[in-house]
């Protein structure tokens, strides 16, 4: 039972006497338990649980969680900065970048394209049911192009890529970590941050805007297809109406969002993969965390950027 590595802080009070709750709080042995330094000292075991304990435990737990959150945010920020700094400092690993770019951009095309097509179509269909009541069907083309370029393109493409690519990055780097491949890189004169992380961050940053550009076109095409084939709109009128509502600022902000999302997705994949430990289970939870945290951050930043650019 006696752990040799744990410092034992003994309660100065004789075993026979009991602490009152206030005395217990000032006892060094009790304080040590409160900050988790030692296992239950005798004074804590002797003492009957007091009502204060519940409150104190709650406060301690809250404090610990807050500290852990701040620590995680700090280490993530440092990780991001180091990764970014390696993007601009040679040597550059073009081959790794190309691989990551193809994986993030090119091979995500089918998924993103289908998502954009269907969501553009759905927007057209849904707004028709509402707009037909007020006989403003002409506004549908404008609604579709606005929704797709501002929100649906970047957000849906981002979420799809987070599930596809963020997970793959976390799994790949995580496996390399737990099988010592990351350390092996270091012993072979290669900085793992530069070799593994920087190319992926850059790939995310560049590939997502390109994907979103395609998603924008296909989203509008989805709306067009539904309106013309199903709702009997005139193709010519729909295209004219679309072009009239198409604004450069909408597309641009959508692409800025996409670049940020791409960076976030790659960052989360790399961060959780790079810091994973504990074999297959560790890699699994790293993958889950990468996708979940990337998706949440993506939506949060989407709100912030929308608020920044469009709220007047």
């Amino acid at each position: 039972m006696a752990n040799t590595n744990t410092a034992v802080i003994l309660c100065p009070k004789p075993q026979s006497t009991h602490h009152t709750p206030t005395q217990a709080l000032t006892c060094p042995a009790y304080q040590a338990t409160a900050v988790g330094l030692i296992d239950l000292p005798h004074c804590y075991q002797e003492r009957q649980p007091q009502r204060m304990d519940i409150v104190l435990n709650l406060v301690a737990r809250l404090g610990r969680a807050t500290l852990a959150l701040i620590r995680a945010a700090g280490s993530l920020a440092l990780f991001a900065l180091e990764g970014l700094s390696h993007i601009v400092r040679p040597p550059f690993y073009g081959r790794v970048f190309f691989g990551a770019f193809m994986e993030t951009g090119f091979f995500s095309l089918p998924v993103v394209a289908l998502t954009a097509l269907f969501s553009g179509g759905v927007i057209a269909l849904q707004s028709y049911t509402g707009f037909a009541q007020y006989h403003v069907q002409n506004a549908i083309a404008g609604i579709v192009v606005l929704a797709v370029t501002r929100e649906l393109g970047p957000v849906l493409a981002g979420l799809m890529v987070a599930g596809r690519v963020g997970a793959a990055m976390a799994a790949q780097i995580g496996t390399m970590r737990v099988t010592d491949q990351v350390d092996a890189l270091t012993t072979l004169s290669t900085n793992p941050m530069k070799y593994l992380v920087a190319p992926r961050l850059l790939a995310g940053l560049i590939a997502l805007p390109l994907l979103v550009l395609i998603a924008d076109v296909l989203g509008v095409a989805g709306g067009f297809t539904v309106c013309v084939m199903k709702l009997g709109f005139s193709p010519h009128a729909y295209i004219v109406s679309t072009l009239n509502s198409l604004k450069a600022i909408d597309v641009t902000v959508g692409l800025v969002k996409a670049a940020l999302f791409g960076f976030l997705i790659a960052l989360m994949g790399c961060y959780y993969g790079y810091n994973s430990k504990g074999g297959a289970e560790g890699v699994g939870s790293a993958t889950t965390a990468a996708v979940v945290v990337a998706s949440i951050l993506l939506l949060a930043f989407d709100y912030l950027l929308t608020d920044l650019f469009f709220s007047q």
Partner: protein
Amino acid sequence: MTDTRPPKIRIRDLHKSFGAKKVLDGITLDVPQGTSFVIIGGSGSGKSVLLRCILGLIVPDSGSIEIDGENILTASTKRREALRSEIGMLFQNGALFDSLPVWENVTFGLLARKRLKRSDARTHAGTILAQVGLDPSVGELYPSELSGGMQKRVGLARAIAATPDILFFDEPTTGLDPIMGAVIDGLIVDCVKKLGSTAIAITHDMASAQRIGDEAAMLYKGRLIWQGPATSLMNSGNPMVDQFTHGRREGPIGMELRK
């Protein structure tokens, strides 16, 4: 001791803890130039951590590590990278890059240091693979297509490719059958001799320790408890070493496994 040259690796009072767990508790060790040094010890005795400290993968809490008289812990990042590039490491499970073919694995360090052109890498990998007894055609395969013994050989080829001054072997024979273990040991001895390198191997395979080692030391609970010639491992006179090398259940090293 008449040798006046400074030791290749000099470690002084090295400490490292993970949380409350002391892993290295004051290691002091000299590895002379050209010696093959074997460190034995049970699982969790700090062997791997010691190697990782010398490699710079783990930063120790206190103490000093000198390579050729230069303290790597206080050296600049650039200098440390230069010193590190003189160390070749064979990892326990090979740690081959599974996304790259064998030839690219073997020449990875050379390509990273621009000591080799990419167009020449395939043929060069072939000659290094031949040194570890593998056919050059293996270069076209991926690590996942290789058997355990072949992976170890490729790992060895990768470690020696840059002709390093110092070679580290982390449990080189673990997970191999006895014959393949002997083959790998033979290759290690050959490579170390051919390169004239200083080598440190950590192992708990006694046969392997005697085959590759000149000098040996035993690590127990983060301390070096014994040091002597590798030939005397089986009759060291130290009760703890005796218990370990003969694999006895009873002895001074208690059953602390079930805490």
